[in-house]
């Protein structure tokens, strides 16, 4: 059978997400890069006790233009489906406007593992690349190094950080071919391309599905080997 990873609906794409699943999703900020339809479908599907690995824990309005609603994983926090977030930018920049996650965190309804953004990206990359752990200079001498192994190489201190993997990665890409090759648009690539590599089941929400050969083979960012399901918005 010719390879075809296209799934016909968002509901179908997320149907098998179990309670307790670990899910990676982009979320640098606003609507760019967010797998909005997958998130909406997961809210409807209702899986609970989720762990979300993302840059933020859902920031309303950040990076939005006002042209479209900025749906992000904050809605899963609001619906009580999220037990834990692993993030670098978990709360609103302004303390006077706490997000759903900050409230849940303060009330003990949600946990947080706070990770520097580059360490987050590198831990995800490591997860996808078969590297269980690596040393990084980031965070040495700060609270993020607390309880972690540190080690000196060439006279400088480094912290040991461990790979992150997930059960699912929800991606937002611009185009896919049915083999799962993906391209993104502009800065929306950010965490999407690296999360694509680190999940057991990677699902891409895309604007357009094209035939193999229509994407420039030199410009494919995520080769299809990483992608299990594709859904068109």
């Amino acid at each position: 059978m010719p390879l075809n990873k296209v799934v016909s609906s968002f509901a179908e794409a997320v149907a098998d997400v179990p309670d307790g699943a670990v899910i990676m999703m982009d979320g640098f900020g606003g609507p760019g890069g967010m797998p909005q339809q997958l998130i909406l479908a997961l809210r409807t599907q209702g899986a609970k006790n989720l762990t979300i690995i993302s840059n933020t824990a859902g920031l309303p309005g950040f990076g939005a233009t006002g042209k479209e609603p900025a749906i992000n994983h904050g809605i899963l926090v609001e619906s009580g489906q999220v037990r834990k977030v692993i993030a670098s930018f978990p709360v609103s920049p302004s303390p006077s406007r706490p997000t759903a996650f900050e409230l849940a965190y303060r009330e003990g309804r949600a946990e947080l593992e706070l990770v520097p953004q580059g360490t987050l990206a590198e831990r995800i990359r490591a997860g996808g690349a078969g590297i269980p752990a690596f040393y990084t200079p980031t965070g040495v001498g700060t609270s993020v190094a607390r309880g972690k192994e540190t080690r000196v190489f060439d006279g400088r201190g480094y912290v040991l950080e461990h790979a992150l993997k997930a059960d699912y990665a929800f991606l937002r890409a611009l185009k896919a071919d049915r083999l799962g090759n993906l391209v993104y648009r502009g800065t929306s690539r950010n965490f999407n391309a690296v999360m694509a590599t680190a999940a057991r089941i990677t699902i891409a929400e895309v604007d357009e599905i094209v035939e193999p050969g229509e994407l420039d083979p030199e410009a494919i960012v995520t080769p299809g080997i990483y992608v299990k399901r594709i859904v068109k918005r």
Partner: protein
Amino acid sequence: MIAPRLDREAIAMRVARELPDGAYVNLGIGIPTLVSQFVPEGRTVVYQAENGVLNYGPLAQREEELDVDLINAGGQFLLPVPGMAFFDSAQAFAMIRGGHVDVAVLGALQVSQTGDLANWMLPERGIGNIGGAMDLAAGARRIIVAMEHTDPHGRPKVVRECTYPLTGRACVSLVVTDVAVLEVTPRGLLLKEVAPGWTTEAVQKITEPRLLLAPDLKEMEL
């Protein structure tokens, strides 16, 4: 002695003069974002943002220019410019951690006399955003802090030891504030410039650690 403090633009202007021609620069949020508009004529500076863009230029201003797929790390909308390159977050931070970014300009809550930086959390909030700050502090070749000299309560932000949670240790090279320019040296903080109308004594008064005076100490040029 009660000379006015510089405004945020003037701080940014002074920082801009520190950026060498051809430098790759990452600008943090707050005052640092203002730096790009003051780069001296004839110098080229290439901006990197940790959400995955190199060589970005002016910000988008008009409603119809706003593109959710074209933002910098502060969430500001960008305009497309020739020579831009996009990459993912792992690559963006590989650049930063790998020492490919020449200068990062960051805001700060506190800077210590040994160049420790605290800029990600007010302890009273109990939760905060690290974002890319720790990676920049650890990875950029030179860290310039751009900030007000005192906090909203009038307390010194240049301190003997940071009391706020640290972003990085001994990472800051230069501190540009609304009243002075301080260099972090192995012997301590060197006062190199004071704002127009400010005396070294006045600067020292709102600075916690003892400042060393540069032999060529002068008034800040903007």
